[in-house]
């Protein structure tokens, strides 16, 4: 039974967000609810403090062209403010079959969409270009980073159309991402990370070497984190279709130990790569994800 609470974060519960009709509403509800809880203005990071002029290049928002300078020098410069450095956000969303797993109302993929939508909403309100790449064994959808009007809608539309696919191939997918992200930025990987830590290293390390700030959200279902079975259970892998009969004792002991070791290993790998790793359960409110991003964003 759900407990009624006055906490504003209660509105960030995934089962509450799942009741909203569109991802835009979900993102708005999540972000504004988050900042309401933080007692901060949603106009976060929109700094008015001038930082530098930068020669206009293709893809820059023409609204920030300093026309006065253009009039004086006949050159196009855009003004940059302190809060705008390194804010190109690329969301890499794992849509493999394992992400479709759900033991409750909200699947891991759905939760990942909420996180992605919220981050995109937050970033675009900061005028940061936001891009999206969805992948499983290959890239399923790609949208280059953009901060233009309508970008949010386009990204949310892309997110809305994503369904759980096949196997995960993180290395190959992020290799393709590297090809599209030549400029430094912020890369957020949202996945359940059912792969070997070395695969993560191989996939993410080149991005780190290119100067990208990387944040990894590892989404897990509560039933994966804390399986509770009284009797032997026959599991079927949603990706491979293989079946395996597992005893409850194993799930209570060895499985948990191995999963915990995997998570810790991922955490260490992320640390080695200079990336942030945040484990999220698909039944917990989104505020922890947003806070993690927020803190990461401030550091970046």
């Amino acid at each position, binding site marked *: 039974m759900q407990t009624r609470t006055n906490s504003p974060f209660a509105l960030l519960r995934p089962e509450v967000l799942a009741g909203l009709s569109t991802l835009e509403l979900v993102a708005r509800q999540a972000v504004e609810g988050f900042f309401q809880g933080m007692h901060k203005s949603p106009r976060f990071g929109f700094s008015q403090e001038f930082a530098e002029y930068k020669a206009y290049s293709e893809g820059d928002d023409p609204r920030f062209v300093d026309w006065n300078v253009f009039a004086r020098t006949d050159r196009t410069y855009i003004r940059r403010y302190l809060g705008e450095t390194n804010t190109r956000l690329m969301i890499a969303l794992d849509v493999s079959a*394992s*992400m479709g*797993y759900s033991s409750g109302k909200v699947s*891991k993929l759905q939760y990942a969409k909420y996180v992605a939508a919220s981050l995109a909403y937050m970033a675009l309100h900061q005028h940061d270009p936001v891009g999206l790449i969805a992948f499983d064994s290959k890239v399923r959808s790609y949208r280059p980073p953009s901060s233009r009007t309508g970008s949010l809608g386009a990204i949310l539309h892309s997110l809305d159309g994503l369904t759980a696919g096949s196997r995960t191939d993180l290395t190959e997918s992020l290799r393709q991402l590297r090809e599209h992200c030549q400029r430094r930025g912020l890369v957020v990987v949202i996945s*359940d990370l*059912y792969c070997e830590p070395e695969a993560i290293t191989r996939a993410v390390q080149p991005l780190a070497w290119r100067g990208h700030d990387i944040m990894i959200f590892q989404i897990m*279902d509560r039933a*994966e984190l804390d399986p509770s079975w*009284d*009797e*032997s*259970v*026959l*599991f*079927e*892998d*949603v*990706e*491979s279709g*293989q*079946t*395996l*009969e*597992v*005893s*409850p*004792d*194993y*799930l209570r002991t*060895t*499985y948990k130990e*191995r*999963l915990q070791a*995997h998570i810790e290993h991922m955490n260490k790998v992320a640390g080695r790569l200079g990336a942030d790793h945040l484990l999220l359960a698909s039944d917990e409110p989104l505020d922890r994800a947003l806070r993690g991003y927020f803190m990461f964003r401030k550091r970046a």
Partner: protein
Amino acid sequence: MWIAPLALLGLLGLAIPLWLHRFARKTDTKHAFASLMFLEPSDVRRNRRHELRYWLLLLLRLLLLAAVVLAFAGPQWRLPVKAGAAGAALHVIVVDTSLSMQYAGVWDRARAEATALVGKVRGADRMMLVAADHRLRVLKQASFAGEAGAFRAALGDLTPGESRLDYGMLASGATGWGAGPGERIVVHLITDLQASASPLRFADLQLPPGVQLDIVDVGATAVQNLRVAGVSMSERGNEALVRIEGDAAALAGRTLVLEVNGAERGRRTLSPRATLPDVQRFEIGELGQGEHRLAARLTPADDLPADDGAYALVRRVQPKVLLVAASAAGDDATYLRAALQALAEPRFDVEVSTAGALATRSLSEFAAVVVSDAGLLAGAPEQGLRKYVEAGGAALLTLGPRTLQQRAVPLAGAQLATGRARAAGEAAARVAEVEQSHPVLREPGAWRSIRFFRHVPVIAPDGAQVLLRFEGDAPLLFEQSLAKGRLLTFASPLDRAWNDLAIHPLFVRFIAESTAYLAGARAAPATATVGTAFESDLARRGAGQVFDPRGRRTMMLDAATSGPRLVPEMAGYYEVRGGGRSDFIAVNVDPRESRLERMGEPAVKRWQALQAERAAAATAAASAAPSGAPERIIPVWFWFLLAAAALAFLEPLVANYHLHVQRERRA
């Protein structure tokens, strides 16, 4: 060794619980899981305590099934027994329990000898106890010396009966006593060597080959016995005759008592100087109508009291016969009445009536009805007579000119043949075929001398037995059943214009015997001998029971229906109750058992020598042929059966326990 090795195929059924448990243990329902990356197949036995209990249940079920299959396969364990120097032997102790063994002191010696024999059985030898009189009864099956106590107890309960032992019957029945391979059979016959027990042919004394005979003589050497050989009524019917046989030396001090229907009607002290056999006459006067029980007995009892009495039934009946004729003064009525009244025993009480009276009066008082011409019955009289016959009555029909006016013989239903009746002046027909076995046709030659000028040509109805036929195969006399009754039809009247039967002596005998037969007056009183099968009519009565002289019920309806043979085991009156009436059977002891003369010494030696030769020959043949060592067979299947019963008790307990645990877990 297996009794039914094919039953072992049932062990294939062990796969069923194995499959069921495997199937049941396997989780059917698949649960989707994100990844099996961190999972491994589980060792259920190690990790699940309740699964271990399922294995216990599986084990129980497997053992139960195996035990049932093995029990049905009938395993036997052949245990080699230690044979002595002479080899193991089966000692068959046959105790003579015939009447003569009741002679003073004989039975005590027999029991002592049998008990001594039981004590002598040792080691691998087995023994068996058999009682022999008119049948062979195995009292104790073959057992080892350890069962000696039970044998002694059985001997203690055994008493001699009143029936007869025939050594020939004993010799022929001494087979199938279940001796093991290589086991000798030694028959210890404990008997009084009564000469009258010997069969007619000496060769009939031979026991089966290989059987050794050890005769244990327990008979008395000097015997004196007096017996009542029989009791009957005199020809005149006013005296009871009692025949006394035996040793004259036993006459002294003996009194003969005569009882009629349980009441003493005479007592006489026997003269020591009387010559035996002797017939004692008791004047008891005419006995009334009905059946009377006569019993004669000697007092005081001698050393063989069982033959001191004799029993007989005397039947005094005067059956009523209804003679139906066109006129009481007619020739046919006169002839028939004269013939019926000519019979001395039974004496018929003849009443003459017209056919019209049959429709109105009750006929149940008559033992039989004689109709001078069946044509008189046409119409209502036929219905009245049919009702009487079908209820168990009997009728004799003669067919005359009135019958010729009918299309079928009334009551008998026989169709008249299409041909014409033999006309006057034609050559007389004669009887060509006589059923001599029928009680009313004892003089076939006399029948062939009778000339039939005319007769009524009829076709014998289905189910009728033709007793007399003419030369042309036409029936003259046939018998048929109508429900419970009987009907005799004679296809010619007693008219001299039709035949000359009336002037032959056969006429009176035929009419009288036919009527007596139909009235059942010729049935002799029931008598039987102890140990001899007696055909009871209980089955025909449809219900009833038989009581022995002590009043104990010995036979019930079911037994009577399946085989109405009664084998009386004691002398006296057996009572047969059923079908709404009660009848007695007089049962006497076999007179041969009263003759206590012993077999001659040479005959006994010859018997033993004969059997010794046969046994030696059989032993030689057996030793020449390869044979296994004597073995003791232990029925292992019985223990499997017990184990199956115990497992069948445990299985539901364990299964219920698991169900209980599952319910709790689900709750």
